[in-house]
């Protein structure tokens, strides 16, 4: 195992997913020599999405072909500070990616813009309900950036991703039947909305009858053939149902591999090194400047890669882990309530409701498109009066059918109370698969003083580093929110004519359970903001303490929202890159005085 020092570059980027690919594209456009380091292997549609071999549910969703290999590294999890955290040994509750494209290769494609009120949630809540409305122990914060500032970058990301959707308001004018709660847009979606699958079609009608405002979920799944501004081509989605967990064989689902990397790979300023596991960021003796990174290559050699600028663009918790093991920023201590790295770790609060329709109605759950579907936002963000409810946060409610395949149907089984095996299970499972519609309340999760990330004292990864430790549990505020929103779905399933409905709700006192898939939408832990006492990075996603390190990802979210994170991560990447290009590169240093 040799130690080799490589030639210095302008920029080193850790992670080959959406955030890293966007930063690489922007910074090579600015003439920078960029090296991107990805811990996993090379991936492309031609190999990982080959038809028909890749349409293998066992390999894709149950042997986790394009997901993180936990054998090398994982996290530990506990519900509270008095417990011993234990390793997350088997993928279940959340499914991070690995390999070129990162989680951007296996994602589904829901592509939303953050709601304006969610970006200023603390200020909004205080102005509407008073400071005393915020529960004790909740670290409610603003992002330090507004929707108006981010709008051009949301727009840019949609054009790069080839996003399908229907706008409501463009440049102040109502133009269509989009989300009536959505903010103004500078331009329409690049592609029209996808067709509704049966469940979404029935949900749209029933939600309107129930008095809500249904809209087509903006989806980075192309409804038509499309060529993006980088010259990348997408084919029209054919609703094949192999979306989440697969490298879309139709080139319809946006991914770094399809939408950005083809342009980058042609650029001599760009170099992608896969199977390169970054161990830590190296700092100079002042600890206020990064000198580059150290990584292990495929052969196990330790490579010192000097760079002028370091971009951390790994998965949310891997960014936080790298900051902690590199000594960037002050680690959070929940007891003294000091420090920022690891603070405001958040998740998303999801529950699924099922409606069984008349047996003459086939819901064809195997037909699906990852980002498509129908939602209503009447109980999301600040779209309703929280005053009488006494909680902060909200949920969109939607039918977002990415394609339910046979093994998943078997494991989901029949209605509650049905045995898990035997003939009764068979009947219940078949009836549910053929005739049911599933709806999610896809809700926010607030940040709390005693929910955080730090380094585990016991378990280590394959490279000898301490594992990241999650201290996480559901809180009453978020459970009350979930129960309130889910109760509103009853009107919808009634209007649908359901013969049976199971309203899936969070239960008080039930701890976070790592054994069951919930969502991979983890957030926070190195959040953005305007106060270095409560944020690890400034509003340009630049480290307060080490100004030549930028940290891009959902780690920047001060609290969890009801929306999927990728649209916001992409917009933040373009926003940060814009300020690096226009300000930082001309005069490297802090973009905001600490």
């Amino acid at each position, binding site marked *: 195992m040799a130690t080799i020092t490589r030639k210095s570059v302008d920029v080193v980027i850790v992670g080959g997913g959406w955030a890293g690919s966007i930063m690489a594209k922007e910074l090579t456009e600015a003439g920078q020599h960029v090296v991107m380091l990805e811990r996993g292997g090379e991936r492309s549609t031609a190999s990982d999405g080959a038809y028909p071999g890749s349409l293998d549910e066992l390999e894709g969703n149950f042997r986790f072909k394009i997901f993180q290999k936990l054998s090398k590294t994982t996290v530990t999890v506990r519900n509270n500070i008095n417990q011993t955290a234990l390793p997350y040994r088997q993928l279940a509750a959340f499914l991070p990616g690995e390999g070129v494209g990162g989680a951007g290769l296996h994602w589904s494609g829901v592509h939303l813009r953050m709601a304006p009120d969610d970006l200023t949630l603390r200020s909004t809540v205080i102005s509407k309900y008073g400071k005393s409305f915020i529960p004790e122990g909740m670290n409610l914060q603003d992002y330090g950036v507004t929707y108006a500032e981010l709008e051009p970058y949301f727009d840019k990301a949609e054009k790069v991703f080839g996003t399908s959707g229907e706008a409501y308001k463009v440049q102040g004018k109502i133009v269509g039947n989009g989300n009536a709660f959505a903010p103004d847009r500078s331009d329409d979606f690049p592609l029209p909305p996808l067709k509704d699958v049966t469940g979404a079609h*029935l949900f749209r009608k029933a939600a309107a009858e129930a008095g809500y405002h249904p809209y087509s979920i903006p989806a980075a799944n192309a409804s038509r053939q499309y060529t993006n501004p980088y010259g990348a081509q997408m084919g029209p989605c054919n609703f094949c149902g192999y979306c989440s967990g697969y490298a879309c064989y139709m080139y319809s689902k946006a991914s770094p591999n399809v939408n950005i990397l083809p342009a980058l790979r042609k650029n001599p300023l760009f170099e992608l090194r896969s199977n390169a596991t970054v161990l830590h960021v190296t700092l100079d003796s002042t600890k206020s400047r990064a000198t580059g990174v150290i990584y292990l290559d495929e052969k196990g050699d330790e490579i010192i890669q000097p760079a002028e600028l370091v971009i951390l663009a790994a998965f949310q918790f891997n960014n936080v882990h790298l900051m902690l093991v590199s000594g960037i920023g002050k680690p959070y201590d929940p007891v003294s309530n000091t420090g920022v790295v690891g603070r405001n770790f958040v998740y998303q609060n999801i529950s699924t409701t099922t409606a069984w329709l008349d047996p003459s109605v086939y819901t064809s759950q195997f037909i699906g498109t990852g980002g498509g579907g129908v939602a209503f936002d009447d109980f999301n963000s600040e779209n309703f009066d929280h005053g009488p409810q006494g909680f902060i946060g909200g949920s969109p409610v939607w039918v977002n059918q990415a394609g339910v395949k046979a093994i998943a149907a078997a494991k989901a089984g029949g209605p509650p109370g049905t045995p898990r095996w035997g003939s009764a299970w068979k009947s219940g499972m078949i009836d549910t698969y053929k005739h049911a519609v599933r709806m999610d309340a896809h809700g926010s999760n607030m940040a709390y003083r005693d929910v955080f990330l730090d380094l585990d004292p016991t378990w280590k990864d394959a490279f000898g580093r301490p594992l990241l430790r999650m201290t996480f549990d559901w809180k009453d505020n978020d459970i009350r929110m979930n129960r309130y929103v889910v109760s509103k779905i009853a009107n919808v399933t009634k209007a649908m004519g359901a013969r049976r409905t199971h309203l899936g709700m969070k239960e008080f006192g039930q701890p976070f359970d790592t054994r069951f898939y919930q969502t991979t939408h983890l957030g926070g832990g190195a959040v953005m903001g305007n106060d270095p006492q409560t944020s690890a990075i400034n509003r340009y996603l630049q480290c307060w303490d080490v100004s030549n390190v930028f940290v891009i990802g959902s780690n920047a979210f001060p609290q969890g929202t009801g929306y999927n994170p990728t649209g916001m991560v992409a917009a933040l990447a373009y926003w940060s890159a814009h300020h690096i290009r226009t300000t930082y590169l001309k005069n490297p240093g802090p973009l905001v005085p600490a």
Partner: protein
Amino acid sequence: MLSPPLSRRRFIQALSSATALTACTWLARSPKAAPQASAYTPTFFTPEEWRFLHAACDRLIPEDANGPGAVELGVPEFIDRQMATPYAHGALWYMQAPHVAGPANLGYQLPYTPRDIYRRGIAGARKLARQTHNAEFADLDADTRDSVLTVLETGDLQFDDLPASTFFGHLLGNTQEGAFSDPIHGGNKGLGGWAMTGFPGARADFMDWVDQYGRQYPLGSVSISGETI
């Protein structure tokens, strides 16, 4: 799906109802007892384990009016073939020590790979059958096998430090995988699992059917290798 924790009382009930059935020895030795093993020769499971696997899968997904059962679908072959994959060697899991017991909601914490779980689990389940029914599990009639499987599923029985319910969970999960995965992995023979559920398999093109609202999809299933029904 989360099973409710089983009370001591219910566990004992399950055990005693299982015991009660041992009196009916004619049932336990009826010619319809265990289904015949398929022509496939297992490479991981011993002959006794192989008989157990058939007899257990046969009850988890029985052949009935809804369609074929796990044995007809080749699930034992699927599971045996899976035992040669990285998954069965624990390569998909974080296996580093120390292995410390904790609350169930923090997930699996034992040092055992799927191969270990089958070896220990089948030995434990066969022993349970011999203790409570004085017979090999595979020689028990269907109802008695169901009662033993229920004990494994819902009881707080331990096979040394391996909970019987952990073994049961793997057996059930792999059985479902075998019945409904692409036949390239050895199960879902004749695409019988897909025919039963109406899943079209690798057909993967519904451009012309997405807005045929509520109608039953008219085409049969197709596998990765091109097999159709």
